[in-house]
């Protein structure tokens, strides 16, 4: 059994009469990398600030290591925050910035110096001790801010979109670095982002939020391959949606009528008459020039989009636009060419249509 380091119990938060977080429960395990993922306005930053103690909560409790910290000031919580804009103290040197937390705890000067040195080594910034924040690049400032949080050895490190201000390449590097750092130190990270790439690459678990509620909590693989709602499926990764009705239920396979075509899916607890959403990821769609026997649609290539290492295909099937892709950048098809699309039966993500939709 993994140890719960942070527990959120029936958290509610409203600003004025606008409810941002509606009754949220969450358990975070020791040493895990948990990502709060969602579009802007879903409340992910609000949750982070509630954990940090920067904003009071409206209702509910927050426990860190079993201790109720809901009413405690930030300085009495064993968590540290990495702010989106780094929030480095502009007039202090790198050294003083990183040592600030320890200084507040009245750790002896010699000890601070030693720990700051260790931290600088950890984030590859040795030799930067005497510089001021404005003399550093964005990536370097971010490292300083991470070191400034980590030096306090928090129970949980909260990161609020820490990489969003960096350019693509640097962001990729920092993603890997952060992940390695987290593994090495074994500190629990709660990471807020709106980027599904970041979430999928770095997390042990992803919490997908929608309108202040948890939509799904799972590992990246599960949440991508087995989303439990259409929202999750469409938020993470690209998807092609077919909607149909179950017409025949067999022991192994179930038949679904989509428009005029019959589609075969693996049987689960479907019943005749169920309305289903069938989701296909672009990378699972196969293009064929010959008509296959089952699970096939005829389509027309509308466009091929060069994407460096891969190529995206836009295919028109009846009135629907389907996204597909293949690795490599050779031009395999012509615009306007008629092709057939198909897929492996186990690659289809099937969800029962939510009744209110």
């Amino acid at each position, binding site marked *: 059994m993994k140890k719960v380091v942070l527990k959120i119990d029936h958290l509610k938060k409203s600003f004025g009469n606008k409810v941002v977080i509606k009754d949220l429960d969450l358990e975070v395990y020791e040493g895990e990398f948990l990502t709060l993922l969602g579009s802007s306005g879903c409340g992910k930053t609000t949750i982070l600030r509630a954990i940090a103690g*920067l904003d009071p909560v409206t209702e509910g409790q927050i426990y860190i290591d079993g201790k109720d910290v809901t009413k405690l000031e*930030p*300085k009495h919580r064993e968590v*540290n925050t990495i*702010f989106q804009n780094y929030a480095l*103290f502009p*007039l202090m040197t790198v050294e003083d910035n990183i040592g600030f*937390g320890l200084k*507040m*705890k009245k750790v002896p000067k010699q000890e601070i110096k030693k720990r700051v040195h260790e931290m600088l080594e950890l984030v590859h910034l040795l030799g930067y001790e005497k510089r001021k924040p404005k003399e550093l690049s964005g990536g370097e400032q971010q490292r300083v801010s991470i070191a400034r949080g980590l030096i306090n050895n928090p129970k949980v490190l909260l990161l609020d979109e820490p990489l969003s201000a960096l350019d693509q390449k640097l962001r990729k590097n920092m993603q890997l670095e952060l992940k390695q750092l987290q593994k090495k130190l074994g500190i629990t990270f709660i990471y807020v982002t709106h980027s599904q790439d970041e979430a999928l690459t770095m997390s042990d678990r992803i919490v997908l939020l929608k309108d202040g509620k948890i939509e799904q909590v799972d590992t990246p693989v599960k949440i991508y391959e087995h989303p439990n709602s259409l929202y999750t499926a469409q938020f993470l990764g690209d998807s092609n949606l077919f909607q149909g009705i179950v017409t025949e239920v067999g022991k192994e396979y179930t038949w679904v009528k989509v428009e005029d075509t019959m589609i075969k899916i693996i049987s689960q607890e479907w019943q005749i008459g169920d309305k289903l959403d069938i989701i296909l990821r672009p990378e699972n769609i196969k293009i064929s020039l010959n008509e296959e026997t089952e699970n096939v649609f005829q389509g027309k290539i509308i466009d091929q989009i060069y994407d460096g290492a891969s190529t995206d295909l836009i295919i028109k099937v009846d009135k629907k636009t389907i996204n597909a892709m293949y690795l490599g950048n050779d031009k395999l098809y012509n615009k306007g060419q008629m092709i057939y699309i198909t897929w492996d039966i186990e690659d289809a993500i099937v969800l029962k249509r939510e009744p209110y939709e």
Partner: protein
Amino acid sequence: MSNKKIWKIFFLAPIIIYVALLIALPLCYILLISFFKSDYYGGMISTFTIQNYIDVFDQVYVSVFLKSILIAGITTIICILISYPFVIAVSHKHPRTQKILMTLVMVPFLTNSLIRMYGWLVLLRKSGVINQVLLGTGIISEPLSLMYNIPGILIGMVYTLLPFMILPLYSSVSTIEPYLLEAASDLGASKIKTFFKIIVPQTLPGLFNGSLMVFTPALGYFFIIDILGGGKMMILGNLIKNQFLTARNWPFGAAISIILVLITSLIILAYRKLGGKMDDLGGA
């Protein structure tokens, strides 16, 4: 000369003329006559002498200097102590509320400060409003003497000069990003630690600017000393005024003025030597 240049000069001309005619020229004149000799009838003899500057170091005048600096210094410190909590509180308010509050700070400027000083007389004198209220409620049994003494002078000085501390300090404090204060508290700093470690260093330019704008006039606001000090005290302002208007010793008055200018310049120079930027003083 290009057209652009002509226009530039055209628009700058009023300012240049204003500064040259009304500030630079009179100052040069003051500097010039500070080296003259006065005659017995209030006139001046245009011979070069540094006697006026030697006279300034007479014990009587040195004590006036020290007293002035003391009063101006205490005024400045009181203004700082009042302004910091005020501007920090204001900066946390809604932007609209901030605007209203800061406008209120400037409202007293709409009335002549001399008239406002007479207003204080009504409040502070033995039979004044404050004493009447305190006596009436039984908090005190004897009226407090709030004027014609140093507390009275300080009340007047602080009252008149407070906006000059609040305004630059406010613009300085409002440049501090709120997330810096959050970061400090996240890292374990108490409110007081955050104030001294983050807010004060970041608002030093505003603090200095405000101090300069309070300290310098406080050396010279003779009307406050005259009204609320009851004419019993002498600071640099009265001294200069007396030399020009009563003693009619213009060269000596000019010499004291020049020394006052020098003191102020030295303070600014020290600020720059300590790493302050002149830009921060202007815009703060």
